[in-house]
């Protein structure tokens, strides 16, 4: 059967266009749907009062604090490890067996499902090390989960710093470490920060790894050994157990707004950074 190539091209192009439009529409619809139902619930009081009656009434204050605490913990643990790894890979070594092993570890870690991280965190941190369901256990588990993201984005950021900046530093008598800390890191900072911001987004939206390590207590955490419920876990429990639909929508709206802000900030930073060096 002969089909006119021009006609075929037109038809295919329309189909591709349609599929792309549907994909974009789905995204907008999800955001629109959550905000439409969630925004009416949102007000100052919802954000600043604690949940009461298992979340049936009251706000989500303690879950916001829980989310922030867990995320900060995870970032504090994962950033030094991730950036350090990236520095080693880009500045201190050439491609070798060791770098291949390091990359393999990072790539495999990135592919592990969050429920496996949850199982692991539960058995090691909660049970074996006796941290219990706590912010500490949750942060450590999340840190392991976001480590590959930070390694990859930092590595890309460091690589995109032009080599002649380093040469100038060396020619002035700077050592490798001086060059890294005074020249390369400052130039790569926006790129590294982008990776960290994206990891914040992942930590905030995570449920499976958090629910078995940080628990789901509704009190405001008082120390790193307190159990704490994050917004994502709170939303999951509210929706799944049908405790309160309005509060579930409200929590989801806060989550979605946070994710939007995080992603847009990260994207803009990255864009600016890329422009500078290309």
């Amino acid at each position, binding site marked *: 059967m002969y089909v006119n*190539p*021009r006609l*075929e*091209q037109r038809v295919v*192009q329309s189909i*591709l*266009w349609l*599929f*792309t439009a*549907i*994909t*974009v529409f*789905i*995204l907008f619809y*999800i955001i629109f*749907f*959550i905000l439409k139902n969630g925004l009416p619930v949102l007000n100052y009081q919802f954000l600043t009062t604690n949940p009461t009656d298992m979340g049936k009434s009251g706000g989500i204050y303690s879950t916001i604090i829980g989310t922030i605490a867990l995320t900060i913990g995870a970032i504090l643990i994962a950033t*030094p*490890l991730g950036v*350090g*790894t990236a*520095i*080693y*890979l880009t500045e*201190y070594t050439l491609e070798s067996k*060791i770098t291949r092993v*390091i990359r393999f*570890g*990072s*790539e*495999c870690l990135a*592919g*592990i*499902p969050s*429920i*496996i991280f*949850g*199982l*692991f965190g*539960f*058995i*090691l941190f909660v049970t074996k090390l006796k941290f219990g369901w706590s912010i500490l256990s949750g942060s450590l588990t999340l840190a*392991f989960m976001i*480590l*590959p993201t930070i390694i990859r984005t930092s590595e890309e950021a460091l690589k995109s710093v032009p080599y002649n900046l380093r040469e100038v530093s060396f020619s002035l008598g700077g*050592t*490798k470490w001086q060059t890294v800390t005074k020249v390369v890191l400052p130039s790569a900072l926006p790129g590294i920060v982008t990776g960290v911001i994206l990891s914040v*987004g992942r930590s*905030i*939206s*995570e*449920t*499976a790894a958090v629910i078995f390590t940080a628990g789901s207590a509704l009190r405001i955490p008082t120390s790193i050994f307190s159990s704490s419920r994050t917004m*994502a876990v709170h939303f999951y429990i509210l*929706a*799944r157990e049908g405790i309160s639909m309005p509060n579930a929508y409200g929590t*989801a709206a806060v989550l979605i707004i946070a*994710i939007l802000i995080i*992603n847009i900030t990260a*994207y803009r930073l990255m864009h600016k950074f890329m422009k500078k060096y290309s």
Partner: protein
Amino acid sequence: MTTLERNEKLIQLALLMIALSAISILAIITLFIFKEGMPIMFKYGVNKFLFGLDWYPTEQSFGLLPMIIGSLAVTAGSLIIGIPFGLACAIFLTEFSSLRLRQIIKPIIELLAGIPSVVYGFMGVIILVPFIREHLGGSGLSVLAASIILGIMILPTIISISIDSLQAVPRSYREGSIALGATKWQTTKMVTLPSAKSGIIASIILGMGRAIGETMAVIMIAGNAVSIPHSVLDPVRTLTSNIALEMGYASGEHRQALFATGVILFIIIMILNTIANATAAKQRTK
């Protein structure tokens, strides 16, 4: 050796230690999951776990076959949705759209990846499940619902990696084809897509890994019944849901059986990742 030189050596050593953290963490995770999950598999027989049909964990009956089939079913379903949409987007954005449109749409699609999985599950419960119940029958909590939601969830993975591999095809390939009088679509079909094949396959395998590993969204919409599904409208339980549903209250051998579920999941994911990395590496060396 001066102090400065010694410091440099120390710093390099410290950085190497840090750099080994990812692989060490991977090793520790593997060790713990296997240490907790393997003994019970050997105690009752690996075959019983892999091919047993009954899951009554409190009565020493640990058949995981329904869950293995469940995971495979929703993953296959998600690929049926995810591959056409994902590839269509990737091809449209690299080959047919203007640069401006691409710069707007690509970050928007990447935003899809940032939406929490519980929100996807929730959208499934609120919109998709009632729709299936009313128009197609059954409870709505089904393989079909899970496949559609997972299909959407893996789109960003498939799209962004496919775009990267399509963009990596040298311009001269396309120009050569266009110069021979081929249309844009003929060029895409016969030149660009075959050259980007391994990258695209890697993107699909990684998407598959995401679908198999997804937990919370699936729990909310798949129905979680422990039985082998006979139609796409039947409820199903996946390996991941099995762990998450029962972890909260399991103890003793029941808990170990959940770790055994984790072991099987872990092995499947590792195989997929290895294949994906190997195919992606093939494209890079090309």
